[in-house]
């Protein structure tokens, strides 16, 4: 018979005789698997229909397979070229072999078009040589050089070598207004083509401006709603929630109606005699239109988190501060305001993230001076395959910016604190 001492040292066992620790571990593993099984369908769905397409888009923005695909032997031969002098015979031989295959498969035209994108005029050189090349025999180098002096151009071979790499930064350079110059160095693009950098900055500062205006407008009304008796607060909240639930297009069209030159506000001002009919204000199809309409559309996203924080602050705090002699402003600044910072941070980052990626409203009311980077992503999406790649690069830069802000948001506030309605 075991003594009390011995029994306490023996491992505790479950009803079926396994040690209790083991049984607990096993049952927890089962629980974990069950919980995961519930989440798995959505997780798989999001990975398949959302994450993979995004990764594919990022990959597309750097992927540059055309030269390798159409001129595989040349690409391989060029990889060991030192770039000092016209390439050796091996490269020309590879080029001749690729051209013969290309003419047979009818891919030579595509190869020539791809090279022509980098070196204007290269298409005709390529095609002319390709037509004759199957009549030639080794050594090819002299025959190429005799046929066309363009084959002696170091610049041509440098570009071909660069473009035969599978991964290219070209589209990212374009996305920030840089390109490879004739010497193969990275240089700013000609000024007339410089659009993207300034547009990224405009998108950022206009989003910050819109966020700032939203703070100024949301703070007083959130405070108002939070300090009213329940019945009135609910009524006031409806004034915030109705725009929140109303279609984005409806609100944008409302602003077109209000702000146009023949619109409600201009008519009202003319009727009241503030302006005469020739002096109608231009409030739309420019930056003003974008800022006004987007502030209106995003304001509820600032009010709701602010309100939910302010609701929890007891009004007695402010009274206490005042009764201790603080000026009302001082009481607000050192007692009330710090308590609202979490809501303010949530609202700001929410509004900023939403604003920076806006497309519809700037497209409709922004004219030329009020469009965002999203609008140019959309324009490039409807273009050639090179433009599609540029769109992917622009989208990736925007995505990184948004994820950075999101990460910051998660660190500061926590995504699970997001609440709606």
């Amino acid at each position, binding site marked *: 018979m075991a003594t009390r001492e011995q029994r306490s040292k023996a491992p505790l066992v479950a009803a079926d005789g396994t040690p209790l620790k083991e049984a607990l571990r096993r049952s*927890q593993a089962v*629980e974990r698997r*069950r*919980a995961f099984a*519930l*989440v798995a*369908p*959505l*997780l798989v*769905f*999001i*990975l398949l*229909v959302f*994450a993979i*397409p*995004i990764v594919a*888009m990022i990959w597309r923005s750097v992927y540059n397979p055309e030269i390798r695909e159409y001129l595989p032997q040349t690409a391989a031969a060029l990889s060991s070229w030192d770039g000092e002098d016209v390439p050796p015979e091996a490269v020309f031989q590879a080029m001749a072999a690729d051209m013969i295959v290309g003419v047979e498969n009818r891919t030579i035209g595509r190869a020539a078009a791809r090279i022509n994108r980098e070196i204007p005029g290269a298409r005709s050189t390529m095609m002319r040589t390709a037509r004759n090349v199957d009549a030639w025999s080794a050594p090819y180098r002299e025959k190429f050089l005799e046929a066309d002096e363009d084959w002696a151009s170091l610049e041509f071979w440098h570009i071909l070598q660069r473009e035969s790499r599978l991964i290219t930064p070209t589209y990212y350079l374009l996305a920030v207004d840089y390109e490879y110059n004739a010497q193969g160095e990275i240089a700013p693009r000609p000024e007339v083509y410089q659009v993207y950098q300034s547009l990224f900055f405009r998108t950022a500062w206009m989003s910050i401006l819109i966020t700032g205006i939203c703070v100024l407008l949301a703070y*007083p*009304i959130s405070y108002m709603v939070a300090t009213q008796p329940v019945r009135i607060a*609910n009524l006031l909240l409806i004034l*915030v929630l*109705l*725009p929140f*639930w*109303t*279609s*984005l*297009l409806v*609100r944008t*069209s*409302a*602003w*077109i*109606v*209000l702000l146009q030159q*023949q*619109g*409600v506000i201009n*008519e009202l001002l003319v009727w009241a005699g503030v302006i005469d009919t020739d002096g109608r204000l231009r409030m739309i199809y420019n930056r003003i239109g974008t800022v006004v309409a987007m502030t*209106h559309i995003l304001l509820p996203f600032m009010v709701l988190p602010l309100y939910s924080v302010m609701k929890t602050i007891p009004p007695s705090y402010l009274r206490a501060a005042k009764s201790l002699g603080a000026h*009302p402003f001082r009481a607000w600044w050192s007692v009330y305001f710090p308590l609202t910072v979490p809501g303010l941070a949530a609202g700001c980052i929410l509004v900023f993230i939403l604003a920076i*990626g806006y*497309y*519809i409203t700037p*497209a*409709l009311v922004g004219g030329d001076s009020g469009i965002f980077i*999203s609008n140019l*992503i*959309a324009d490039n*999406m409807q273009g050639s395959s090179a433009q599609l790649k540029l*769109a992917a690069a622009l989208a990736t830069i925007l*995505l990184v910016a*948004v*994820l950075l802000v*999101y990460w910051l948001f*998660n660190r500061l506030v926590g*995504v*699970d604190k997001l609440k*709606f*309605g």
Partner: protein
Amino acid sequence: MAVPTYATTSERIWYYAFRVICGLIFFFLIAPIIVIIPLAFNAQPYFTFTREMLSLDPDGYSLRWYRDLLGSSEWLNSIANSFIIAIASTIVATALGTVAALGLNRRNMPARALITAILISPMIVPLIITAAALFSFFARIGLSNTYLGIILSHVVLGTPFVVLTVTASLAGFDQTLIRASQSLGANQTRTFFRVILPLLLPGVISGALFAFVTSLDEVVIVNFMAGPAQTPMTVRMFSGLREEISPTILALASLLVALSILLLATLEMIRRRNERMRGLSPG
């Protein structure tokens, strides 16, 4: 908060000034939405109040834009498309999202934070990026210009809202109710359907409404993804607003405002019912 009797003059002035400022901001929020409703009854093809409208002359008003809208098979088709897409994607998003939220809120969920972040990410990533990614991807697998492609992309957009709202209602869930139900003799199935589900339903329904509205409102993705056969009303509105805007769009916009009022009322009803069920006083 009335002005206390001991308030100084400057405090009184500030008190009323503050109310005026708030009134103006509320006006800014609500007026643009209200103003389009009478304008949709304009007898003239203008976007402003005519003299006849201002003098409340019945001749200044007409139903011609509503007749335009409801008499045009193109508009009606696109409205039908919008609802087909929204209803289908809401059903799938609600089912997937609710089940996932139930799993996420189990005690033993592994890698909860990471998985939550992945599931919520479609809400954070700007629509134009999602559109750019899905546009090429669906073109490659042959889903562009199909209902299925559009519905799948709207399911992606809708699930984060369902996950968030169901998670929120699970967070306020009193676990002792399950024990109470079981101690009173209910088995697990009965407990789920009679106790857990009714308490969870408000979260599920508001999540579904969010998913529905998100799909109904969505323009960016469908603009790239929809062929002529699937064109939903938002795309038609968008191109209408870009080219030549006619008051027909305002008629549709007014109907959409009515729809959002209806949705808001439904949500408010759910919220009150929910608070009653949890034994809180409605407020």
